[in-house]
């Protein structure tokens, strides 16, 4: 059953240097406050897994927490480049960044395999692309019935998966709605999981389109109102598109970035 703890305690007790940590949230419900807590606690040598590394990944990379990134699209959505991500790959600042790069479909299926207790998943994809050659977690597989060649992607089972959700109850049952992305699979693939929530309520009244994660599938729940900003939490607050645009300037220069982090995160 999920324990309800503070965000600080949760990160301190669930994460270790060198761990593989997935932070999921597809545009919506991005676990920003948990990412900031990881930065504040100065974790090192993390492998970060995230379909769409955006601002939180840029901050984790720029802060020097990340030695490897497993991802499928690293940009500032609708804005452009992710400058700290680029600086790390192009110039090795603040340190070298190893990458394992996939398509969304491929990384999604790696989570699906992980959530399903299987060592791999099968898909159409990769064939003919450069991704087929650069990733060691993609391999050919032949259908035993038709002989057709497809691709297998290796399961991913992060040491810790972190997501943000709208609500939990006092037993640690979690409820999220709106665009729920790959969060269920990411939590189920994780050996441990942390859910930050906007609110802890007496009773989770059902909502159309909601996903419920029963308490027995979650390791810890931490209250973190606004924990997704500048991303959004449907029913609570909207996406701060202006901040995404502003991030382009803030993150472009190393010093401006460091000074912003000092003022706003550390």
């Amino acid at each position, binding site marked *: 059953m999920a324990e309800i703890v503070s965000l600080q305690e949760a990160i301190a007790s669930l994460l270790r240097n060198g761990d593989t940590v997935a932070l999921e949230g597809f545009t919506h419900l991005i676990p920003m406050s948990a990412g900031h807590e990881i930065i504040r606690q100065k974790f090192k040598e993390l492998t970060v897994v995230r379909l769409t590394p955006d601002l939180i990944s840029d901050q984790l990379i720029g802060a020097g927490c990340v030695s490897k990134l497993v991802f*499928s699209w690293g940009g500032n959505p609708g804005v452009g480049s992710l400058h700290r991500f680029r600086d790390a790959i192009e110039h090795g600042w603040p340190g070298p960044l190893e990458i394992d790069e996939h398509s969304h*479909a491929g990384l999604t299926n790696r989570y699906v395999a992980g959530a399903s207790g299987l060592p791999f998943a099968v898909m159409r994809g990769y064939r*003919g692309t450069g991704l087929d050659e650069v990733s060691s977690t993609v391999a050919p597989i032949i259908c035993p019935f038709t002989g057709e060649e497809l691709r297998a992607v290796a399961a991913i089972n992060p040491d810790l998966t972190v997501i943000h959700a709208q609500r939990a109850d006092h037993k640690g049952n979690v409820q999220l709605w709106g*665009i729920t992305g790959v969060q269920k699979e990411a939590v189920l693939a994780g050996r441990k999981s942390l859910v930050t929530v906007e609110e802890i309520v007496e009773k989770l009244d059902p909502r159309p*389109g909601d996903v419920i994660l029963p308490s027995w599938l979650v390791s810890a729940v931490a209250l973190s109102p606004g924990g997704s900003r500048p991303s959004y939490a449907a029913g609570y607050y*909207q*996406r*701060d598109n*202006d901040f995404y645009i502003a991030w382009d300037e803030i993150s472009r220069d190393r010093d401006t970035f460091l000074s912003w982090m000092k003022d706003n995160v550390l």
Partner: protein
Amino acid sequence: MEMIEPFTSDEMMSIAAARQLSNNQVCFIGIGLPSKAANLARRLHAPDLIMIYESGTLGAKPTQLPLSIGDGELAETADTIVSVPEIFNYLLQPGRIDVGFLGAAQIDKFANLNSTVIGDYYKPSVRLPGAGGAPEIASSSKRVVVMLRQSAKSFVDKLPFITSVGFGAGPGDREKLGLRGAGPVMVITDLGIFEPDPASKELVLTHIHPNIAVENVIESTGWNIKIANQLMVTDPPTEKELEAIRSLVSARK
């Protein structure tokens, strides 16, 4: 003679792309240029266009142009929202998408796309965002339409990285690779429209936008571009089209 209102080459590109979409088509939409063109089509001739974004929103009907593929308004106006595994495994992979609508940083003569790196993969001069949903949109949609701004840097003879396969190295390659959709049937730029030659699969300039010179297209293509025998001029934007594109409001606070 009818008066033609002035328009930009970007407006011509979006309008030409919007015209390719029709009502009740199921369209998988990348953010940026494709999203703008699709939302334009919805305001013009295709109000019942079924827009799918990779965030899982099916049948979104935004009033503003979304900044990301997961904006709140896409979710609020969708017929339903499915998980990301469903979008890719249940809807895209089996070939249920009529039109996959893609942008890219670079394209080659066989309409292969690069959105991964400029330069060497392991030592890139520019690290681009990467694949996202594009490779499977390109391989599994029934038909693919590509939009990008054209220059000798974006229309290149050899891609540094193939993110999404168009026609690979030429005829028969899609079949050999087991890619089941028809591939890119049209590439729309700010200069003109390109379609693959049915036999060679090489892109051919079939339409040139109004006020664009063929030399301009030749200079803006990094290979020896083939030009259709009967090169057409794209119909200029109508007043209604221009009005619609100029009234599209971006979802920025």
